[in-house]
């Protein structure tokens, strides 16, 4: 046995989907988290309900690098259908656990192999009724693993109690299976691999959550009043989380509701409803993924042109078309930037962490209402559906910004003299009124056709151009309201990196690795479109700027080139996507490829 490897390895568990393994896997994740060790978990599941291979990867890293690892050190094979692949996947020197009822060959001798008597153990569990055996069987591998690498059983209990909402019976039934697995392992297996966990204190004060829940909570703290949605993976759990948390967080004594969540008949209707609500003065949103977003194009254009505040969450999966519905990407960026026919410019927020999902959840409403525009928030499946460590959610640090609204008393003061699309404040943002305001001059007529400053129909060429120029000016004003990029300027950096969203852990890990190897790199994480002044300033400061993203076409790089033509020659694209969350390896390789290659050839993606 080689030297111990402590708190720095990754685990992959191969099971059958619909078999209940996800409870087991998140239990492992949570228990490790509660041991104070930085950990991440990624669910790689098929677009199907039951019976297909599914994998879960767990990475523990004492230094907090938690991107997906390319190769697992420990593999647990529970599924005969993926057993052979799973075995092949183990990193040399790694560990292979397998359910011993799978009678398939072990054709590697560079890994440690542990059979697990899953079936036998579960059969011996008296408190598990036969119809639940297959489900609870997953807990047995949790127990075996726990014993072999040192997961604290008490922390497993905590995780189970949490999962089963403190209900004693299921908690104990599952915990007993874990214990049985652990006991069996203690009695039957001999540790001969180097991988061990040791408690730390690096997760103190942190929480563990998924981005969709965080987004929903953020929206609730943003005062969400109306949401319309249509089911689609990986966005559904965002709307479902609204249904979960709203009744609790917005409970009133009279039992009445201050919000509505509507499952629409499709995505066109979902955005249409949200626009109706936003127009009428509600904090309104919808959440969807690629195919739904494509269906929203026409309405998105209307919201832009008629200046209706609305928030659109796009939890990206991998396209084009239906694509891989259960895999992640950052592939919708250029589409959203140019969504709908005609000239238009999009406000896009790009969260890269659970806490940003929460923050942007409430900020998006402030921005949408302040600017009277649709605000797109681009999350992705990895961020949205996987559990991530996070700092706790922070209560909004400023009051809600409801934007420019004229009510009865304002109209009274103005003697009814106002124009819906008048740029009175010279910031491109006009004032609006809301249906239900009882003043004879409150009403105006909203339309997607040409209109003048008083919302009157117009085909006048000058009126058209004037309005479009004001919208452009308004987009300039947006810059004051969107989250600024996070810049890490490194003295004497060889190049700068630009990235965004869920690739952050992979990029930061790659950057750290390269720094360790002597390659200094600055970094700028974009958090919104329109770009703000920090972005060109950053590009100017470096000779080469590498834009890293999880798509094929280098979409952010394209947008940057178009926004800053004079700086475009400095930009290089590292773009790769295959449905799996980004790993430090491809980021690192992509960076190196550009730094060892003449500029002119490097405009291509990886």
């Amino acid at each position, binding site marked *: 046995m080689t030297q111990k490897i402590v708190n720095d390895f990754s685990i992959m568990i191969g099971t059958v989907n619909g078999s209940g393994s996800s409870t087991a896997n998140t239990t492992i994740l949570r228990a490790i988290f509660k041991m104070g060790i930085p950990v991440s978990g990624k669910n790689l599941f098929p677009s199907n309900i039951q019976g297909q291979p599914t994998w879960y990867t767990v990475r523990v890293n004492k230094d907090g690098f938690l991107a997906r690892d390319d190769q697992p050190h420990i593999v647990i094979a529970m599924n005969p259908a993926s057993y052979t692949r799973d075995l092949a996947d183990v990193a040399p020197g790694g560990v292979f656990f397998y359910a011993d009822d799978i009678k398939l060959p072990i054709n590697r001798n560079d890994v440690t192999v542990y059979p697990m008597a899953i079936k036998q153990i579960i059969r011996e569990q008296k408190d598990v009724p036969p119809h639940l055996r297959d489900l609870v069987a997953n807990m047995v591998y949790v127990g075996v693993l726990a014993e072999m690498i040192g997961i604290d059983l008490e922390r497993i209990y905590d995780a189970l109690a949490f999962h089963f909402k403190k209900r004693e019976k299921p908690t104990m039934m599952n915990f007993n299976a874990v214990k049985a697995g652990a006991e069996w392992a203690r009695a039957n297996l001999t540790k001969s691999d180097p991988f061990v966990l040791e408690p730390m204190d690096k997760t103190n004060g942190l929480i563990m959550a998924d981005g969709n829940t965080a987004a929903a909570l953020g929206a609730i703290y943003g005062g969400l009043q109306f949401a319309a949605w249509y089911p689609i993976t990986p966005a559904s759990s965002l709307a479902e989380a609204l249904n979960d948390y709203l009744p609790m967080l*917005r409970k009133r004594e009279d039992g009445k509701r201050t919000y509505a969540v509507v499952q629409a008949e499709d995505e066109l209707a979902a955005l249409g*409803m949200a626009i109706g609500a936003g127009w009428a003065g509600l904090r309104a949103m919808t959440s969807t993924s690629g195919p739904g977003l494509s269906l929203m194009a026409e309405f998105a254009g*209307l919201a832009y042109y008629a200046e209706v505040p609305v928030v659109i969450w796009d939890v990206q999966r991998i396209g084009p078309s239906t694509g891989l519905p259960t895999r992640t990407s950052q592939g919708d960026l250029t589409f959203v930037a140019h969504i709908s026919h005609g000239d238009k410019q999009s406000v896009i927020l790009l969260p890269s962490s659970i806490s940003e999902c929460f923050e942007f959840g409430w900020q998006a409403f402030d921005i949408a209402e302040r600017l009277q525009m649709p605000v797109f928030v681009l999350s992705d499946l990895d961020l949205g559906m996987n559990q991530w460590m996070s700092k706790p959610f922070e209560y909004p640090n400023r009051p809600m910004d409801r934007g420019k609204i004229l009510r009865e008393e304002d109209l009274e003061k103005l003697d009814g003299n106002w124009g819906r699309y008048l740029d009175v404040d010279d910031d491109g943002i006009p004032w609006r009124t809301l249906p*239900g305001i009882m003043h004879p001059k409150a009403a105006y007529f*909203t339309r*997607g056709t040409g209109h003048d400053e008083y919302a009157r129909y117009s085909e006048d060429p000058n009126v058209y151009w004037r309005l479009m120029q004001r919208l452009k000016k308004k987009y300039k004003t947006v810059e004051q309201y969107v989250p600024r990029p996070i810049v890490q300027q490194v003295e004497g950096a060889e190049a700068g990196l630009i990235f965004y969203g869920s690739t952050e852990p992979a990029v930061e890990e790659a950057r750290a690795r390269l720094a360790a190897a002597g390659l200094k790199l600055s970094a700028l994480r974009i958090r919104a479109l329109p770009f703000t002044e920090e972005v060109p300033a950053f590009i100017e400061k470096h000779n080469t700027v590498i834009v890293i993203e999880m798509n094929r076409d280098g979409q952010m790089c394209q947008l940057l080139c178009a926004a800053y033509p004079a700086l475009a020659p400095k930009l290089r694209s590292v773009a790769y996507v295959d449905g799996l969350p980004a790993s430090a390896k491809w980021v690192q390789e992509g960076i190196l490829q550009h730094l060892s290659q003449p500029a002119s050839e490097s405009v291509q993606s990886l």
Partner: protein
Amino acid sequence: MTQTLPLAGAPQQVNAIGLTRKDYLGNPTTLCQGCGHNSIANQIITACYEMSIPPEKIVKFSGIGCSSKSPNYFLNRSFGFNGLHGRMPSVATGALFADITLHAIGVSGDGDTASIGMGQFKHVVRRNVDMLYIVENNGVYGLTKGQFSATAEVGLELKKQGVNQYMPVDICMEAIAANATFVARSFAGDPKQVKELLKAAIAHRGIAVFDIISPCVTFNNQENAYHSYTWGKDHEAPLHELLFVPARDEIMIEDIEPGATLEVELHDGSVIVLKKLERDYNPTHRWEALKMLEEAQRNNWLVTGLIYVESNRPSFTDTFHLVDTPLNRLTEKDLRPAPETIEMVNRMMF
């Protein structure tokens, strides 16, 4: 509040809330002279004026088409949202959550509703959204210059378009199949009936689908076309004579000569009085309505009147149990959970 209270002994030109008919007007129409849609706009103005609804309490929705332009031509003091082709229902559905005390009047066309808008139409009906949904039905696309819409009758011949071969969509039957709670049909050439049905439809709580044959004088007004003035005038077959009696006018009902009348009470206490004509027709029986429509289809009858009504099903917004204050008047205090709660939420996250 800018509404004046009803004045005792107000001069004839004002309604019960002291407004004149002028207060209900819209912009001058830009539709063709003689277009059925104009006549409907006029009846909407009169109905709202006579019902004494403050115009600020009405909100207008439409899609795209000549018909969908018409909210411009009535009720200038009401908010309006002229949205996208076929998507009026969703915009209205969302907007109506903002203030459930508002009355919603939606105007759509047959293309807007029965072609591109079929899906949203069926779903807004199914949800029983509390709005008047008018289909200004002319069998063609007016605004794009006279192509067949999905309500064009089989055999209709139009310039440049040839002869229609496909079965027409029957708006009323579709509404009933989708479980509408109020379904009516009328003819723009019968303004009195249009007006009474408008009043009843506005008073109805829940979806009120109102299919009005509204001739397109420019593209589909040939004598023998189902949606023409001539054909309508010659063939309209009213199911009953119809009178809307507002809740507060109990007395009026007594004024009506007794005998062959049927009274349907709406949710707010107002009453629709139906005076029997040739046939016995009870608009509260769903399958009688289906049967009548099927027969009318087969025989090419333009049957008008109140086809179906059911006044006790909760409307869409009813099912949400909203607070009494209009949602769009709630403040941060009502909407943002208290600071203390964030701790609890974080604890819930594991």
